[in-house]
């Protein structure tokens, strides 16, 4: 080991000083999220402000972590909350259980529940981690509510729509139906991606 070896070692360090920095300076900046990231859920509305959720509990039934609690109720005839007979009377998601697998989104027959791209949030109490309908429901503009303890950035509320996997109603595995993004109220509908077979973007 020569005397100059340690100097050469420092050389590497000093040389790197002038390279481009790789660190993302969170919280000053955030890395871009991938398009299909599963983040915090939102409950969507129709254009007329009606809730899409009909309280069918399919999401709760399919949830592998048992993090969703839904109860339905008869829609009040004079002031309906959602179209149809039934609406989601209680809707709660426990984010200390949710594994963001998106099965709820796939199960939802009305595209009521989708996942946003927001993933930067934390809680100091267990109770805070249970989001109720008040927090999950999108605002009147169709955009997700930005809650004070969540770290939303400009434009991050854009993609709350879900990628709907095309499954056959008969359960046929070889079925290739139309795949598309769920309708998104706040920023409109996104163009569908290319189908599973790599076709012409059906």
């Amino acid at each position, binding site marked *: 080991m020569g005397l100059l070896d340690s100097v050469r070692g420092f050389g590497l360090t000093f040389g790197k000083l002038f390279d481009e920095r790789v660190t993302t300076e969170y919280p000053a900046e955030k890395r871009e999220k991938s398009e299909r990231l599963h983040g915090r859920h939102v409950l969507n509305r129709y254009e007329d402000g009606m809730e899409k959720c*009909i*309280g*069918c*509990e*399919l999401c*709760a*039934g399919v949830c592998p972590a048992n993090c969703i609690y839904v*109860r*339905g*109720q*008869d829609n009040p005839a004079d002031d309906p909350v959602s179209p*149809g*007979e*039934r609406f989601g009377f209680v809707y709660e998601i426990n984010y200390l259980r949710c594994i963001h697998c998106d099965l709820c989104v796939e199960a939802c*027959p*009305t595209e009521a529940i989708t996942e946003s791209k927001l993933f930067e949030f934390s809680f100091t109490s267990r109770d805070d981690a249970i989001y109720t309908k008040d927090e999950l429901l999108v605002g009147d503009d169709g955009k997700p509510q930005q809650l004070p303890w969540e770290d939303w950035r400009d434009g991050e509320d854009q993609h709350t729509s879900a990628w709907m996997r095309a499954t*056959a*109603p*008969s*359960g*046929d595995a070889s079925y290739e139906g139309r795949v598309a993004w769920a309708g998104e109220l706040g920023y409109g509908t996104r163009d569908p991606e290319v189908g599973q077979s790599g076709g012409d973007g059906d």
Partner: protein
Amino acid sequence: MTAPTDADVVPVTVNGVEVEANAGELLIDACERNGVYIPRFCHHPRMKPVGMCRMCLVEVDAGRGASLQPSCMLPCTPGMIVDTESDLTKKAQDGVLEFLLINHPLDCPVCDKGGECPLQDQTMAYGPGESRFVEEKRHYEKPIPISDTVYLDRERCILCDRCTRFASEVAGDPLIHFQDRGSQTQVNTFPDEPFASYFSGNTVQICPVGALTAKPYRFKARPWDLEEVDSTFPNPMGDRVNVQSSRDRVLRIQGVDSDATNWGWLTDRDRFSFEALSHDQRLVTPLVRGDSLGNATDDGDELVATSWAVAVERAASAITASLEAGGAESIGVIGGANLTTEAQYVWAKLAKGVIGTDNVDAQLGDGLPAQVVTALPRNTISDAMAPGSAVVLLVDDPKEQFGTLFLRLRHAAVEGDITIVELSPIASGLGSLVTVGAHARPGDVGAVARAIVDGRTDVEVGGVEPAELQAAAAALAARAVTVIVGRPSVAEQAGPIIDAIAAFTELESVSFLPLLRRGNISGALDMGLTPGMLPGRTTLAEGGEWYRAAWGTVPADSGLDTAGMLEAAVDGSLTTLVLLGADPLADFPDADLASRGLAACRTVIAVDIFASSSVANADVVLPAAGFAEGAGTHTNLEGRLSPLMQKVNPPGTARADWLIAAELAWALRADLGIESPESAWAEIERLAPSHAGATVEQVRAAHDGLVIPRPDDAGADRPAMVSFSAPVPTEIVPVDGYALRLVADRRLYDQGTIVQHCASMAHQSDLARISMHPLDAAALGVRDGDLVRVTSARASIELPARPDRCVPRGRAVIPLNRAGADVRALIDLATVVTDVRVATL
């Protein structure tokens, strides 16, 4: 069951395998019995086939070549070749489903049936997967309420005819029917006539789609949320039920098809009674007397919440004080007929074996003496209604009080060759299905029965014409007779009924079904919760030694019944009263005596699930577990033992009744030695003469329950069981020509605690009315709806009148426990019958 002879067996080839069908059996049933399931919607094993849905089409070759035939309409014939899996069959199933789904809305996510729907399941299993129809579906207003508890959604209906068949064939209330023709066919009620059937909930259960939904369960949960357990509903029939709960709340009760009892049916009152279980007025914590600040004091004006330790100690010290001051006779126990059989035993052991009092009565003056009931030879319901037998009805209207028994009776009367003789004072809901309506005048039923049995049918007896007496005698002749006996009216003492029983015991082939009020009354009488009796249908005299050896102590002399206890309380010789789920203020026929008796008691200890009027006046209140909140065994009118299972936890700190007895015994420095319902049952099996050989395992394992045959000899070491001896006949009260004889009966929906705590039923309890024959009404100048004053020797009440052709001449019917007027004010327990005079106002 005899071994099938060759004539009974029909060989049929199903999917290439030869199987044996029974003669006359439908192909669909024969296939299912042999493990080949054929999809179906309209077929129901308890109703006649109609072949409406065409789902059960299979390829059948009965000798003339293979063709598609509906297997639910096809009795098996020898040599039939059936293929349920052929391409043709599959194409038919596929096509029928696609056809059924043309107009069926796909709103499964909001449909209560979604997840347990035969249409959904069979579409997944046999359906096409895709529909070729793009046209708009049929639309109706949805949902429409067709009764107080049932909603109808005609869009979902697939016209299977199940609900309409049930209403007309099974329940006899043909209030829903097909209307219109062709593609416009729909099920609906008639205009301005709701589906007001006591059995409407059954149509919801048998509907193969979500067309009929029940209001109490509507949108409460999804099928995959529900946890379920098979249990027994604690009514005198012991109906088998499936209790379903989600998040520790009972949300639905479904009937379970049990050959022996309810055949899958339930009355609406039982089916929807679960609403009361999660009512927010349930008692959830022990209460004792205290001051307005919530402090427990000995003589406060309020009931304040406290801990179990304090409440049990308070109850025990009251019992100890009474024991020291007035002996065991100064303590009484009323009620216990709604407990499990185990809990009844434990309470009997506490009262008779620890405290040492025989003042114990599960019946509130509206039953029959246990010495009579437990001594009678019993029959099973199925045997009683076997073709060729005869049934005598001497009970409350079964349609009002014992719905599933009514359905069995109705089925037997329509389908089976049985004769029904009604001796009850008024006609029951069976109407014209009754062979002979020999409606005996209250007080005279003993004489009427005697006349029928002895064949002295040439003169009119007790308001029954000779022709009817002759018809009744003929209807019973040479048939196995089952007497269904109870108390048709509390305005008539038990004496004449017992006389009638005594007369019928002289028939050649006779057995009895004691049909008394309150859920587990048979268990209570078997377990000795009644004066003079000990567990196992034995008396104090016969079984005293046996139980003294097991328990340590047993009262020497027979004690008081409920009326006697209340009178003893009034004269001060009874100072501590335990109410076991009993509400004498509302339920005892003499309300005045009940209120004076309860007020005079130094300490009233109430064990109940709701704060009834009697409980509100108690000094110590111990909250008990209700139905589905504790396990045990139920005893029905046949003596059939079937398991009651726990599904949810009791609210708050409420405890099982047997545990309350054990705690109380512990506080009295005694150990009952019972740690669980199972250990209680083991003791019953070990000690009770009537229950020898019925182990916990046997009771739990039997789907239809277990009837222990009454042994001729209980075994050398066990005491003898009580036997029936006819008492001195009650004297017949002469008829007062100016008065009507009162019948105080009961209706399904009344002011009872459970009904009134169920949101969907509380409002169905009508106002009290007095019904009388139109000719009697005309003679008195009373028109429909007129307010009349009804006067007995005791009091008078005012209530509206209603002429009713079903009431025989000379009688007046007022239902008990209805809002508006309390018929109990008229009744004097000391007289055999109550005559009332009616005057217009």
